[in-house]
């Protein structure tokens, strides 16, 4: 599926615009799996960049990202196979991300990786892919949250979005570039939906790769998240135990009540008997 990158390029009927100007170009979303690197027109680039700048919540990250991007762009020019649209059309965001991503988590330039290239429309129904990624719909704010999130996002996309929230840590297929792009555009376009945010949280990957900029904060967040999860688990464990006890005790109670009734009946019965008995045996021998 992913391997068709370059081929898909040619076969793709959609205009080249898509990946980049997600916001601007209408075709972005709809383009079926422009997997491979697309040639991106110059125009969308600006809008993307602008949008990204507006979105950026973490300036240091962004700065870093830009720097890295530029560097990477040149570097990645060599590998035209993948995603590279970014080089030409969009110096700052695309292409390299995938490359970097492939290179390994530690190399990742920035948390803002999702801008990744193409807008392989999320709606793409690649035969290979499962339903479109909900993940691309991350709100812009989520970008700033953590590199981990993005990492997850990337991973997601790469793993062909087969599972919206699952951590497919190893989906490093090269052809996933297309997957990324929709995410970016979507991210910009769509407001956050909690569901999407949620999809990242269960990912274990979040613990890797904090952004270079806000290491401590992100690590702290991760730790806090884990600690919160532990706390919830504790709470639930206590609740479960209590529920169980309640159930057992209620059952015992019922049984005891039943026994009580029966015993009372038995007593009543006996009383009746003794009454008669008393009458009968009233006289003594004399």
């Amino acid at each position, binding site marked *: 599926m992913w391997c068709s990158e370059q081929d898909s390029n040619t076969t793709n009927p959609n205009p080249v615009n898509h990946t980049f100007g997600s916001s601007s170009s209408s075709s972005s979303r709809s383009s079926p799996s422009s997997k491979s690197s697309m040639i991106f027109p110059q125009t969308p680039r600006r809008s993307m960049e602008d949008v990204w700048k507006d979105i950026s919540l973490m300036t240091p990250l962004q700065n870093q990202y830009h720097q890295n991007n530029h560097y990477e762009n040149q570097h990645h020019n060599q590998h035209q196979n993948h995603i590279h649209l970014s080089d030409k059309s969009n110096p700052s965001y695309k292409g390299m991300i995938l490359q970097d991503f492939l290179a390994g988590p530690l190399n990742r330039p920035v948390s803002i990786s999702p801008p990744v290239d193409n807008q392989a429309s999320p709606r793409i129904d690649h035969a290979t892919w499962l339903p479109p990624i909900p993940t691309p719909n991350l709100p812009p704010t989520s970008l700033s949250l953590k590199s981990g999130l993005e990492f997850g996002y990337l991973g997601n996309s790469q793993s062909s979005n087969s599972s919206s929230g699952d951590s497919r840590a190893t989906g490093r297929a090269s052809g996933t570039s297309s997957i990324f792009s929709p995410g970016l555009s979507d991210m910009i376009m769509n407001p956050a939906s909690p569901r999407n945010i949620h999809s990242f949280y269960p990912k274990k990957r979040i613990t890797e790769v904090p952004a270079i900029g806000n290491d401590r904060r992100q690590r702290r967040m991760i730790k806090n998240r*884990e*600690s919160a999860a*532990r706390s919830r*688990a504790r709470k639930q*464990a*206590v609740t*479960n135990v209590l529920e169980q006890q309640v159930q057992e005790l209620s059952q015992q109670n019922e049984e005891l009540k039943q026994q009580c009734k029966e015993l009372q009946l038995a007593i009543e019965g006996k009383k009746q008997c003794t009454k008669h008995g008393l009458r009968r045996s009233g006289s003594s021998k004399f």
Partner: protein
Amino acid sequence: MSMSRIDPLVLGNVVGDIVDPFYPSASFKVFYNNKEMTSGSELKPSQVALEPRVQIGGRDMRTLYTLVMVDPDAPSPSNPTKREYLHWLVTDIPETTNASFGNEVVPYECPKPIAGIHRFVLVLFRQTVRQTIDAPGWRSNFNTRDFAQYNNLGSPVAAVFFNCQRENGCGGRRYR
């Protein structure tokens, strides 16, 4: 809300961190200060300062058990570098009796959590024969699974755990 009640051991991640999933087959009650300790409850270090009374139900006094008490969250749950810290190890406990009838290989050490809320797990194994088990050289980084395997104890037959934090509460973060 919860359709199927999940075992507190699973919820508390005891199953997974310390033991593998097992089928409980022994009646096992732990009493601290004459109060039965329910799995997952929270106790204070002052309440668990002395060793508990561990009651093993059953009928055959010839069956022997081994009891292990570990703290998988030492020194802190978010950074358990000393997982698991061995607090107590008693072997050859006859069924129907309590731990004082067994052989205390590693004496009871009172839980002293400093950072975070620790889980303290008591795991019970059924011995096949009366066996001598050597104490490990140190309490830290004990591994219950390996220990069981090494001594041919098999799967655990029972386990309970409780949570414990600093006496004054706030086992919360002290540093970044």
